């Protein structure tokens, strides 16, 4: 068991993983290695988080399908927070600087990561991007992840909160269809609510019920970056998260996304190692 980072192997899977290890007849050797397959990423994520914490930068990872309104939400947020909180943005897309340009046009520092073919951001890409930003000048950093409801959910970036947008044109059953992504949410935003009159088939209640079925008690907010409705609630959520984060920092603690603190990426006990002689393989 890992005692250094506070993670935990759950009771439900411990028995699957930890046959008693002893050097001897079976050839098994106890080993102190980390074997969560994402450990390489997670180690970098912890370094990123420590770096953000050292500067007190609350970092929010925005995830959704392509076109759900992440960049538009950032533009609306920047307009409201101007003069109140200092914002920075890391943009992830397969190609183009378009989104970073939209942010910079509002006078906010933005770094664009173009991933080429990769469907998600990872902790190493964020590490590189952090070098390009003056963290000492920021209060909140937004990471706009690559539009994708599958892969980004698997990668801790070293951020503090996951916000997932579900626009009303996507259908209200998306949380049931993409449980891994929606389970990762610390906040679900139902976006483009100005379009609700044209989409009577979209029920915000049903969307919320699908989220609850993932055993998630996190808040949901409704907003429209277009009309501005609900944006104030979102700003209030951000401010409360930032206050909570600053308090934790004062106590030398940090904030991790719900799904990370639950220990999804475990330091499991080491794998059981067995040996076979060369001859038997030929």
């Amino acid at each position, binding site marked *: 068991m890992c005692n250094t980072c506070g993670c935990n192997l*759950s*009771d*439900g*899977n411990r028995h*699957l*993983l930890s046959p008693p290890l002893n050097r001897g*007849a079976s*050839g098994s*050797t106890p*080993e102190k*290695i980390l*074997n*969560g*397959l*994402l*450990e*390489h*990423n997670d180690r970098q994520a912890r370094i990123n988080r420590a770096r953000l914490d050292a500067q007190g930068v609350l970092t929010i990872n925005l995830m959704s399908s392509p076109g759900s309104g992440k960049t538009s939400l950032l533009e609306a947020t920047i307009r409201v927070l101007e003069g109140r909180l200092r914002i920075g943005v890391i943009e992830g897309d397969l190609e183009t600087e378009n989104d970073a340009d939209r942010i910079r046009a509002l006078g906010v520092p933005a770094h664009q990561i173009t991933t080429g073919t*990769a*469907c*998600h951001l*990872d902790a190493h890409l964020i590490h590189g991007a952090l070098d390009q930003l003056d963290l000492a000048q920021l209060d909140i950093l937004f990471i706009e992840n690559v539009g994708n409801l*599958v*892969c980004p*959910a*698997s*990668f801790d970036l070293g951020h503090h909160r996951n916000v997932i947008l579900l626009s009303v044109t996507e259908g209200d059953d998306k*949380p*049931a*269809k993409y*449980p*891994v*992504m929606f*389970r990762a949410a610390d906040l679900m935003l139902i976006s483009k609510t100005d379009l609700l009159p044209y989409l009577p088939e979209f029920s915000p209640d049903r969307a919320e019920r*699908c989220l*609850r*079925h*993932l*055993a*998630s*008690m996190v808040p949901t907010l409704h907003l429209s970056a277009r009309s501005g409705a609900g944006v104030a609630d979102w700003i209030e959520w951000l401010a409360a998260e930032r206050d909570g984060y600053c308090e934790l920092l004062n106590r030398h603690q940090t904030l991790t996304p719900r799904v990370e603190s*639950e220990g*999804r*990426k*475990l330091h*499991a006990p080491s*794998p*059981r*190692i*067995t*040996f*076979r*002689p*060369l001859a038997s*393989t030929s």
Partner: protein
Amino acid sequence: MHELSLCQNLIDQLTDLTNTHHAVAVARVEVQVGVLSGVEAQLLQSAFTLARAGTVADAAELITEVTTPRVSCRWCGAESDTPPNNLCCLACDSFDTQLIRGHELILARVELVKNEPLTL
């Protein structure tokens, strides 16, 4: 398709293990993949075939064990095996459950090839 980058990570770990144990190759690898881990066992298999080429795992067999969700209810204490998109307690319908299986992504077992007789 992040399964390929995961496999490259897996190969790195296998290479380290092979060196640590003075082995010459990897014969067999067992990985547990929770259905809520965000990783597709089938994709992991095909990515592994690409990633292992020219490494210590060149001839290794990958076994994936897919684990399904199991939740523990914080309200009534019952444990239930549930579908991935309905993690409510089967006993009392509560949403307030904790996932205790089905989200793991774990290297469980590795069989290494040694170029020497095994001492029993």
